[in-house]
């Protein structure tokens, strides 16, 4: 079952203000980031931090949505759950790609290399590939592939915490997870711009989710009409 007209009307009410808010935040973010203090050892290149980390935060949020919706879809088979699962997976791939591109640009300057096959970078790449696999299963899997895709999303969701904690478990060149929680104490001047940037990315994630779910619901309605016509 898709989202009803009442829910669509409700979505339309907050959709336009959200678009404006996200646009303003993404326009303002570079100014805040430019005015944030320079990190002493890395200098200017460290400012990639302000959108590299938020892109992973948005990816983990998308994975959480896809995973939770996949559980609901496998348990109840509701079409709206499937719509959220597909939307979450697609957006997870988008934000994962941002992280995988911005990270090496930072690493090239900070580490001297574009890529290192260490635990964090390799597991993050594999997580991205799991959700690419989800999209491929849905696209080419034929009828009934939604359930197989939902199982793939659950596998990806179970993998995500290991990717997050990999820097604490294994020895890697990547900074540890404690960097962000300790930011208000270690670098108070960076905490504000980082929080702003993280919020902008999370709102962008919500915006993209709303648009992508709308597309999924319209596709579902089209499928219903085709089936009704055939019968």
């Amino acid at each position, binding site marked *: 079952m898709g989202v009803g007209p009442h829910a669509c009307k409700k979505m339309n009410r907050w959709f336009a203000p959200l678009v404006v808010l996200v646009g303003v935040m993404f326009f303002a973010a570079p100014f805040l980031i430019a005015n944030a203090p320079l990190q002493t050892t890395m200098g200017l290149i460290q400012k990639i931090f302000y959108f*590299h980390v938020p892109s992973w935060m948005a990816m983990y949020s998308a994975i959480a949505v896809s995973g939770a919706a996949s559980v609901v879809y496998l348990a109840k088979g509701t079409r709206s759950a499937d719509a959220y699962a597909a939307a979450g997976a697609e957006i997870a791939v*988008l934000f994962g790609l*941002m992280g995988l*591109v911005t990270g090496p640009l930072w690493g090239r300057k900070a580490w001297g290399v574009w890529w290192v096959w260490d635990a964090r970078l390799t597991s993050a790449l594999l997580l991205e590939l799991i959700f690419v696999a989800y999209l491929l299963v849905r696209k080419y899997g034929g009828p009934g592939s939604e359930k197989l895709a939902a199982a793939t999303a659950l596998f990806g969701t179970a993998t995500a915490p290991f990717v997050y904690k990999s820097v604490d478990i294994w020895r890697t060149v990547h900074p540890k997870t404690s960097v962000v929680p300790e930011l208000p104490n270690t670098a108070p001047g960076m905490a504000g711009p980082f929080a702003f940037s993280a919020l902008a990315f999370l709102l962008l994630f919500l915006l*993209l989710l709303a648009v992508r779910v709308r597309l999924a619901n*319209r596709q579902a309605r089209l499928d219903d009409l085709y089936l009704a016509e055939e019968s």
Partner: protein
Amino acid sequence: MMASLLAFVFSQPPDPFVPVKDLPPGTEQLPAAPLLIGAYAFVWIAVMAYLWTIWRRLDKVDADLRALEQRSAARSSGR
């Protein structure tokens, strides 16, 4: 000869590490700004490209919906 052989054996290989502050000016010149701007530009391009694909897919679904509704309306009026 023995002395020169011993000197060769016990000599330290030259240390390849040079601290950044000791580099002659102009050698460590991988500029950060293009990498930083490139990263931010990629974020924008990725979001815009994704939104464009969603818009295209929405347009196609809407066109199919309209065609289907017209077809069913024509069929019901022909009855």
